[in-house]
């Protein structure tokens, strides 16, 4: 079947099998910044933004995004680059497998709540697992990034 949607600002048509999940559709179509960590809505590595909302692409049928706007980290390159500088300063990046999804979630948080408290940051990011870092450093980086203080 055909699904038309907007991907990172461009209208695209994907040919998908019924029952195909967005994560698989994106990766088969070459969008490899979206990662598969668990395929069970439990790790956050596959996060994309659908109409601005963080969405686990491993558990969304591609057919259901007909006509919607999907954003992957490709559409927030500058922001991701800036955020990564805060991550670097805090020692918050390691293997990077969780990074692109985190950048998207932080982008969505910023849109929703530009000046969150630390607790709000932790709550918003809680579904994005990271096995490498001590997590605190990532929270610090996001807090400083959103607070605008370097």
């Amino acid at each position, binding site marked *: 079947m055909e699904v038309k949607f907007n991907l990172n600002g461009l209208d695209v048509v994907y040919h998908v099998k019924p029952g195909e999940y967005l994560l698989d559709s994106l990766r088969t179509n070459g969008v490899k*910044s979206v990662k598969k960590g668990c395929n069970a809505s439990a790790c956050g590595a596959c996060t994309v933004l659908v109409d601005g909302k963080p969405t686990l692409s491993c558990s969304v049928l591609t057919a259901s995004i007909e006509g919607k706007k999907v954003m992957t*980290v490709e559409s927030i390159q500058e922001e991701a680059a800036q955020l990564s500088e805060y991550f*670097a300063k805090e020692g918050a990046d390691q293997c990077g*497998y969780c990074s692109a999804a985190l950048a998207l979630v932080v982008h969505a948080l910023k849109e929703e709540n530009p000046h969150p408290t630390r607790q709000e940051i932790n709550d918003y990011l809680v579904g994005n*697992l990271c*096995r490498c870092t001590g997590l605190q450093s990532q929270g610090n980086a996001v807090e400083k990034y959103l607070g605008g203080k370097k």
Partner: protein
Amino acid sequence: MKKNFRVVNNVTPSIDGKGLMQGRSFYTDDLAQQNSLVIKLLRSPHAFARIKSIDVSEAEKVPGVACILTKDNVPHVPFTRAGQGYPEPSPHDKFIFDDYARYVGDEVAAVAAVSEEIALEAMKKIKVDYEVLEPVLDFEKAYENKSVIHPEEGIHEMFPIGFDPKKNLAASYEMEVGNVDEELKKCDYIVEDTFYSQAQAHAMLEPHTCNARLDEHNRLVVYSTTQTPFHMRRIMSKTLGLPVEKIRVIKPRVGGGFGGKQAFHGEMFCALVTLRTKKPSKCVFTREEVFGCSYTRHPMKITLKVGATKDGIIQAIDCRALSDTGAYGEHALTVFMIVGSKVLPLYNKVKAVKFGGHVVYTNHVSAGAYRGYGAIQGNYAVESMIDELAEKMGMDPIKLRELNSMKEKETSPIFEIMGEGTEGTAMIMESCKLPYCIKRGRELIEWDKKWPRKEVGPHKVRSVGCAIAMQGSGIPFLDMGSCTIKLNDGGSYMVTVGATDIGQGSDTMIAQIVAEELQTTVDKVIIYSSDTDLTPYDCGAYASSTTYVSGNTAWNAASKMRERLVKEAAEYMNVKVGTVEFDGKMFTSGEKSLSLEDLATNRLYNQDTRQIAVTESFHGHVSPPPFMAAFGEFEFDTETFEYKMIKYVTVTDCGTTINPMLAKGQVEGGIIQGYGMASTEEVIYNDKGKLLTTNFDVYHIPTRAEVGELVTEFADSYEPTGPFGAKSVGEIGIDTPPAVLCNAVYNAFGVRVHHLPITPERIFKAVKERK
């Protein structure tokens, strides 16, 4: 000794951090060739069974199936999946496919098809006739059990490791210094206790992944999420009977390893499918396979007897351990030995020490390498016992540690006795700031105010616990790394290293070392690592070897390059070598000067043209341990026994921190992973041996919700044998949380929990039993 560093020991962003956050796609599965055949593995539903026959005829008829591999059509060569040096200290007890399935999930067949759906459909049509056997699921009953897990012919050890498969023994070990029984008799205080630790899952975010293709020379090219590409090439070559020169292994970016990727997982299947079909293939483990069918930590039972005299000196330690290696003996002996060799030397005032026991096979998923590698299990037991001893003696547990632990310029006889499955190497602690780490950590946690406990509200108490730890820095004389540096036009450097970056940041660390030595900046250093065709050899990322071994390698190569550049410049300027100064950009000799850029251009294009390049190697003669003192504060609910981490303080001596932020990341990441093992990471099997905790919703790793404040400091220390004074830091962070939490629980409730993870239920049970 110490000098003012410009690049090393300064904050340097990891060189790939930005690109990865921007989504650059360089992980293994991102690089699979389009239209790769998809490989799915048929896995045993039985914990132990003999495979009488496999019928693939119906499966082969499914359109789109390209190839099915079973025991009937693959090479039958015993090997070990452990990515270790040669000859491996692990038994060769694994076949690509075998007549037996030894755990629920053991591989029985591989199906390669044009799509995942077709592979799965075909898999259902494979008929396997199993003779179900009685499994061994309790590792305390494995030794000499009537069910023999490895009855097959042809399996063997590479050198004596105590391998005795007829008794379900993968390995065994015994050592004694002095006479423990005699010394214990002279002690005024003796404590004895037993501790159990579980089969923790690595749970790295990127699953085990590999893919294969043939290149234009029809050579096999394997991309793999491996920690040991060179070992992988060697083992693949021997097992498949394919010459080394026909195989190339490439490790792209890796999404975390923690030891779990120091092994073969899907690679043999990919290689065989591609060799047979001439088509690219890929094998990506599902999360359920990562949990249930890759590796876990070795579960252990450790029994300790520790004796001390009235003056507070620990005189003897007797440590018996039993380790469950699961279905295969990967890393069986070496993990076991680390329980002793990287924990017991901490208490080096003893007159006698004994360590030994068995590593048994069971019908559980295979245990393998896992960050900490035995040290975390040993640390949980030993550091809990030290608190028990202190309690019995009426002494502050920190004071007892201060009195008895390792100091600078001291040694332990254990170093010489215990090595990597063989004898070890004697060494003196040239750098050991453990006393400082303990003192500083005590201040930071405010021990004197908080120990042992404080009521902080109705049903709420806060308590503190502490532990100390050590690890190693590579395996002396065995672990080797190498590095090639060549000069580019423009005056930048191309550095190729075998060292394996699995997310810990070794590429960045190496770039810093090269930049420091050549007085340049990290952006002038291009790094390419871990490709068996293009980079020189390195043993790989394990045993806390990368900073020390690969770092020293890079340092050697960079200083050789420096010498070489000065020689070339002297020749060009027609002056004596001894008169040339080099500041990273300019060579000067008296009035004459020459830029690095001009030298590079000249040598590549103009006069006496040649490539300026050097290759150097390094192996350690010692394995200087990093040390750590850790202190945790927790808040307990005295009614529900639920708890949370308030604060975790660590002070680490890892010599110079080459990259302070990456070092902090290693320590903190280790602590949180260790805290997961201590607190929530519960492994559950049903009574048939089937693993039930197979995804993140049921196997709970620490999330942002439960991490307390981490205070991470480093001691001012310089290891004279390390690169710019550095030691390793990759593993030590994980070692302390089980003991720290266990001790804090004791300080809160007066009970000791002898099983990991320390769940509220277990605390409740211990409290109830005491009453």
